[in-house]
């Protein structure tokens, strides 16, 4: 009896020691089932993002209906969002309660944070290659793309963890474009080049900011004129740094942004805020509202926002009587070296959350792949200046006809073709846990500088030093730095007392187990002696 008790105690101790520490870990790693079980019903949740665009919502709904018709045992419940940040916050909350969606449209930066939990996100490479259910797999009920039919640059963006493994698939891609009131540029005596330099933009913008004696602007005769307005100042800073080959971050997450080139960019921004040539979305409003009202020369916004841009824009927030007629030109974002343009690649990707039932994960993967079919890709890309992420869709007859359809809004098509022509000139920033904060900080540097100039604060060396320090602290980039240095194996300092206590307890328990086992063996030997 004593022996039984001791053995039981030992087992309990071992189990608690060996597995107790792992109690907080995520689900088991996903293993692809041999075959998809069609005898059971699977409910999967899909958190989708639309650009407050009803057509996009309709396309998701149709995709779900069509998919469910092919797989009657899979039911997809969609939850719609209009904001990536909200999706991110909800996912983080739901990871803790193990109620994440099955399939989620999101950004790689966000996925990097989701991945701080074990096996939360399903790695996709084995699924890509699976002969039955992989990309272009033999048992798929639809005609999806093969691996070779994915646009390589866009797919590569989803292998962001430094391990070469894909944790997402791209869904749609866009970049930023400069939407230009060409009439104004020419009115100011300039000819519009194919690729604009930053110097050109600043020069024209300064000229456009000149006023009459009565306070109206010479260029438009109105009381309002923002010659150059930028929607995403995060992207503005990131692209300028990239074009200058200046530091932003390392792939591992070391923050490099607080450098001299950044300061030089901020000084330029300050100079042109001072002349009234430059403002931002956060400070003023949507670039389209100014551009379409003839109150702007250069407006930078996403190609995925192209249906809002221009004097014939099908979507608008301003009153019809505020529209001004002008020729809208679409160009890449300004460059430092126009011979070698560089622009950001952005747009939603899709990740799959791991679940205890591998069949449920497989169902999620089937639906994810369905979103890559030509039907979905072509339809969704057509809602805005998005580009399909598969060559299969891009090269399809349907898509080619769309690109040449005179009934389509010409600014949207120009924005789409801009990205297709420059896919090889796109880049993405490194993704790591904390990269979202760094991106926010990049934009905040511009926003803060612009606001300070508008508020007549002194913007000098001391200002920038303080700005760097405050931004580092606000976005906890100093903590990112220290996390990074830990991964480099540098000195971690003394262990916390709780950790020391835990380690000591573990050692003591194991010593006691050892002593007890030894004691039992000696006792047995003695008992066997005649």
């Amino acid at each position, binding site marked *: 009896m004593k022996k039984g008790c001791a053995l039981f105690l030992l087992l309990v101790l071992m189990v608690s020691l060996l597995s107790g520490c792992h109690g907080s870990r995520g689900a088991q790693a996903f293993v692809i089932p041999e075959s998809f079980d069609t005898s059971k019903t699977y409910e999967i949740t899909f958190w989708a993002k*639309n650009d*407050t*665009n*009803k057509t*996009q*919502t309709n396309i998701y709904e149709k995709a779900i209906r069509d998919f469910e018709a092919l797989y009657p045992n899979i039911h997809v419940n969609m*939850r*719609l969002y*209009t904001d990536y940040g909200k999706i991110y916050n909800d996912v983080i909350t739901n990871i803790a309660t193990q109620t994440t969606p099955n399939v989620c449209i999101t950004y790689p930066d966000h996925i990097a944070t989701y991945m701080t939990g074990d096996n939360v996100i399903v790695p996709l490479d084995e699924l890509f290659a699976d002969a039955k259910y992989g990309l272009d797999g033999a048992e798929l009920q639809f005609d999806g793309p093969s691996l070779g039919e994915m646009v390589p640059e866009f797919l590569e963006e989803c292998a962001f963890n430094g391990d070469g493994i894909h944790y997402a698939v791209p869904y749609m891609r866009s970049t930023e474009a400069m939407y230009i009131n060409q009439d104004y540029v020419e009115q100011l005596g300039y000819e519009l080049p194919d690729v604009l330099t930053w110097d050109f933009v600043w020069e024209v913008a300064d000229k456009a900011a000149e006023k009459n004696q009565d306070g109206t602007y010479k260029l438009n005769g109105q009381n309002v004129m923002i010659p150059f307005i930028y929607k995403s100042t995060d992207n503005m800073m990131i692209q300028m740094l990239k074009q200058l080959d200046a530091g932003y971050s390392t792939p591992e997450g070391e923050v490099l942004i607080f450098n001299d080139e950044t300061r030089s960019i901020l000084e330029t921004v300050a100079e042109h805020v001072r002349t009234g040539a430059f403002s931002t979305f956060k*400070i*003023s*409003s*949507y670039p389209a*509202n100014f551009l379409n009202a003839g109150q702007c020369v250069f407006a930078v916004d996403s190609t995925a926002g192209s249906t809002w841009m221009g004097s014939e824009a099908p979507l608008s*927030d*301003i*009153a019809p009587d505020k529209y001004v007629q002008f020729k809208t030109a679409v160009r890449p974002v300004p460059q430092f070296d126009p011979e070698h343009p560089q622009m950001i690649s952005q747009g939603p990707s899709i990740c799959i959350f791991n679940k205890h039932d591998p069949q449920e994960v497989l169902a999620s993967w089937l639906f994810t792949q369905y979103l890559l079919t030509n039907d979905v890709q072509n339809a969704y890309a057509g809602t805005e200046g998005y580009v399909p992420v598969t060559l299969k869709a891009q090269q399809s007859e349907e898509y080619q006809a769309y690109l040449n359809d005179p009934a389509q809004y010409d600014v949207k098509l120009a924005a789409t073709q801009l990205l297709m022509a420059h896919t090889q000139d796109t880049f993405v920033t490194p993704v790591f846990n904390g990269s979202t*904060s760094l991106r*926010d900080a990049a934009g905040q540097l511009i926003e803060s500088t612009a*606001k300070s100039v*508008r*508020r*007549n604060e002194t913007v000098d060396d001391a200002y920038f030093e303080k700005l760097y320090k405050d931004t580092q602290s*606000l*976005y*906890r980039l100093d903590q990112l730095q220290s996390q990074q240095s830990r991964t480099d194996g540098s000195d971690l300092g003394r262990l916390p007392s709780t950790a020391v206590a835990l380690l000591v307890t573990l050692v003591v328990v194991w010593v006691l187990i050892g002593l007890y086992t030894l004691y039992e063996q000696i006792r047995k030997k003695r008992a066997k002696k005649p």
Partner: protein
Amino acid sequence: MKKVLAIMLILVLALSATACSGKKSSEDPTKKSEGVMTYAEYDAAALDSEVVIETYVQAKQGWWEDNGQGKATLYTQDGDGAYFIYNAYISEEDYNKLGEGQKIKVTGYKAEWSGEVEVAEGATIEIEDGKWVAEAVDITDKLGTDELIKYQNQKVVVKGATVEAKEDGAAFWYNWDNSGVQGDDIYFDVTANMGTYTFTLESYLTGSDTDVYKAAEALEAGKTIDVEGYLYWYEGPQPHVTKITVK
């Protein structure tokens, strides 16, 4: 004994009534402390200039945390005009102290975003003693006139408005283009004073669990309603609705 008790009760009641009315009447919502702008001074202040105001919270959008910084957006008003306080910096503890009518001192910068004049993001708030709740001003006959902008951000009411059908016949949409779902902002159109205007239920102000949100979901085209809310501006008037009364 009973008589004494009754007299005491009456006295207590009378005293408390006096106290209440005294508090109400003692609060002058136009009076300002030293160093604080009057509404007229705020109104005249240039954009991007620093402003210091005393005002009374009429309604608030939810508190949230952004990179560790607590933020909240407030609809506030004094006896002369209204102030929209956008994403002021405030702790959750202080935010919870901001009941209807709570007096606050706000220090920040004046800004304009798509026509909406506001105290820009990052203003600081001090909670002061005092309470005052604004009465809704009837702006029905101001709709469509140049005078309307004077009421920007104030608590207003539009009376006898007719609910107009959206393009698809619905009385309201979730999101401006019907791309949303329950819980998102609600948009509905009304005709009043010979013009049609879009009113909004801002979900951060009046979420799907509020009576007014449910009332909006029950709207029918052609019905006559009174609508109360705050005269928010986005490229034109776009009131944030807090009360709907179907006639």
